[in-house]
């Protein structure tokens, strides 16, 4: 049950004995903007690098070690049209410690010191820390070029999306980053702390009264946070956008984007879930069996569904000279689904695989926390295993054929490998 702490600030407690840990998370949520993604990523690095109480990374590490190796993460990402700044911790449930200590209270105090007492010099983030973290982030963004799989997938998104915020990777953009000043970042920080919707979530063996008392250490002012719908939609393009880059790599990457009119737990969602799984979402899928296994054309070939942005992407690693053949075979697989040319057994098994995946994810405290968050933005989000099972089993062959026909190829990105003459 999501409880209101004050205007715009909420607490959700999920009581369970399943885990040896307690998971705490605090999300700051705002509308996503292009430059905002970059600034919030940098802010996560700066706030988790030092604070008034923790001079440097070593001081922070020491505190986490003293909390029995508590897991700590601060990061920023985008989900649909929302920008989410996440702070999360994982601590051992004190009942399992030989010498129990109040880890929950300590963890929350720790988060409070990082969030509310940042490392400031003259009302600015400490310039030494700011510049160093900015430089590290610039290096990180540059290093993506070395990871061809990620590079190709980002290039496809850049090609497919028409909205600049959606084109931008979660971690931001190098040009925007170069322009960020310490003053800008401090403004971003204050706006986030005072205006963002705040969602706190606890998962584990939680004493509710104690949780409220511990969280009272974090004082959030009331706020009026207006958020857009989480879903992003863009108009269909009449033409398929294509781009090719050439690089001296042994393996080429061919990635495609299909627009779909289907969103997270909205109309036809279960049918689209099954369609994607059948197309390329599982090892039994048509892409896997026909591109990888039967035709021996690719090392990997799979599809992924982004139900917050209405897109299915296909990613493959191939011999570059096989590009046209692979492209044709991918489209043939979609055509086969439209025409109902798939085995009934594979169809049934695909559904069971989705059910297995859903139930398995209930064994992760992080997933349970994510599920709670999704439900806040999309109230239709299913969290019950039996309900989910029934809905998936009810998907008909005809519904899947219709959804495959609803997939519209919109973008083709090709990273072409050129001969390196390497030994």
């Amino acid at each position, binding site marked *: 049950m999501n409880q209101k702490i004050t205007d715009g600030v909420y607490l959700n407690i999920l009581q369970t*004995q*399943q*885990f*040896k*840990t307690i998971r705490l998370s605090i999300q700051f949520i705002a509308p996503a903007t292009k430059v905002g993604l970059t600034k919030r990523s940098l802010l996560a690095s700066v706030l988790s690098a030092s604070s008034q109480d923790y001079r*440097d*990374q*070593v001081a922070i*590490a*020491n505190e*986490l*070690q*003293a909390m*029995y*190796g*508590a*897991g700590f993460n601060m990061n920023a990402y985008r989900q649909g049209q929302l920008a989410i700044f996440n702070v999360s911790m994982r*601590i*051992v449930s004190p009942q*399992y410690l*030989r010498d129990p200590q109040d880890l929950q209270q300590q963890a929350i105090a720790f988060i409070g010191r990082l969030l509310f007492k940042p490392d400031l010099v003259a009302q600015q983030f400490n310039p030494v820390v700011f510049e*160093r973290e900015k430089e*590290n982030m610039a*290096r*990180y963004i*540059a*290093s993506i*070029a*070395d990871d061809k799989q990620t590079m190709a997938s980002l290039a496809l998104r850049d090609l497919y999306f028409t909205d600049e915020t959606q084109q931008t990777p979660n971690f931001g953009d190098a040009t925007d980053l170069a322009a960020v000043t310490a003053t800008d970042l401090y403004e971003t920080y204050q706006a986030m702390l005072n205006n963002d919707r705040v969602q706190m979530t606890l998962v584990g063996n939680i004493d509710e009264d104690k949780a409220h008392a511990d969280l009272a250490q974090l004082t959030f002012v009331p706020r009026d946070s207006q958020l857009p719908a989480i879903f992003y939609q863009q108009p269909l393009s009449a033409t398929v956008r294509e781009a090719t880059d050439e*690089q*001296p*790599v*042994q*393996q080429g990457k061919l990635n495609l984007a299909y627009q779909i009119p289907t969103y997270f737990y909205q109309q036809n969602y279960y049918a689209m879930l099954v369609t994607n799984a059948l197309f390329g979402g*599982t*090892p*039994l899928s048509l892409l896997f069996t026909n591109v*990888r*296994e039967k035709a*021996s054309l*690719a*090392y990997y070939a799979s599809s992924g569904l982004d139900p917050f942005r209405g897109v299915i992407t296909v990613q493959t*690693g*191939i*011999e570059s000279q096989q590009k046209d053949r692979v492209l044709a075979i991918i489209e043939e697989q979609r055509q086969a689904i439209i025409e109902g040319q798939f085995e009934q*057994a*594979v169809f049934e*098994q695909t*559904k*069971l*695989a*989705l*059910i*297995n*995946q859903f*139930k*398995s994810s*209930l*064994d992760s405290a992080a997933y349970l926390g994510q599920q709670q968050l999704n439900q806040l933005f999309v109230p239709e989000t299913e969290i019950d*295993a039996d309900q989910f099972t029934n809905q998936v089993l009810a998907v008909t062959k005809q519904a899947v054929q219709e959804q495959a026909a609803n997939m519209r190829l919109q973008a083709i990105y090709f990273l072409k490998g050129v001969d390196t003459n390497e030994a």
Partner: protein
Amino acid sequence: MKLRQNPRLGETLYEETLDNGLTVKLYPKSGYHKTYAILTTNYGSIDNTFMPIGENEYVTLPDGIAHFLEHKLFEKAEYDAFEKFGIYGASANAFTSFTRTSYLFSTTSHLQANLEILLDFVQEPYFTPATVNKEKGIIGQEIQMYNDEPDWRLFYTVVGNLYPQHPVRIDIAGTVDSIAKITADDLYQAQKTFYQPSNMSLFIVGQIDDPQEVLDWVSANQAAKQFDQPQPIVRSLPAEAEDGSDIIPYRSMTMPVVRSKSMVGVKGLTDFGTGEAGLVAKLKMNLLLEVLFGDSSTQVQRLYEQGLLDDSFGYEYAIQRSFNFVTLGGDTDDPKGLSDQLIAILEHYQDSPDFTEANLALVKKAALGEYLQAFNSLEAIANQYSDEFFNEVSPFDVLGLIEQVTLADLAQVAADFFKIEAMTVCHILPEEQA
């Protein structure tokens, strides 16, 4: 069944060795939806030269055969094992390391049927020249993909420097040329020798309602099959210089990378084996590396502030049957500066401001907490405790072993291990600097 328990954690592990020699371990986790089972054979990429069962001369099979065998076992005359797991919605996978090959599935229903699929497809080989040849294209792609990855190349160059003879220097998947030589007969020969039940173990963790019933399923499946009498496995490895004098101290190469990469390797010149001594060596080295280079290391913080390393910095101690070595490094603008500094910290460990009782106490506390947290993950439990290091030692003994470690122990490990003659360096440079 033998029972190992930890009442405070509320965790229990059941163990049994079947008549045919197969070790079975069962680890129920209440509240979990999933069951994860992993069948492992003590056979990996380094086991290329061996005495086939019933013969008295060594053979050497092509590099990459253990991994190739792993791929090929899924395919049968009548069925594909992946698809068979799929009938129940289970997901399956497999992986090959230097010394082990593992086959696994996870499921939320039909545990018995899935266990039988697992045992049957791994224990009933079927290979034909046609299916073997087709696989060469798929694995060839896999090998090429790894060749494009700079971090992977860096790692194998360091291992190759440390081990000029030992097959650990060779890619687990082999090379495009070596796998081209693999035949169906080679695969049968390897399977027959290394997939004896006595060389294998089955670990099942997660939702298990009745451990005895699950054991009975496995026993019945095994009793219905014919196996040869268990025979000892005879492997052969090339000799390495005991004093490390054959180590190649330095290699560099250029690749299309944005930033340089620098890695230091240290070869363990003592073989600790894979019993309790090996496990203790592993725990101590991990604590030592954490003390010197972990999150609370002021030395690493200093290098970070100097811009010599970034978040990509990492270290690892690999200890398996017949080899053990440390690797450490990451991305840097000054590859020589970074490797020089890392070697200096290793050599002068005793002067390190981090080599203190206080830091060790924190590092141990964190290690204990992380060890407890790992009991959340079925995969972590199975992958860690199905390891041969846990043949004699119980998973629940690890807490005590960590608590016992002293700074004097770490000084001993460091003195034995961090010798300049046991070290090597590799740098990868961007092409334009070449």
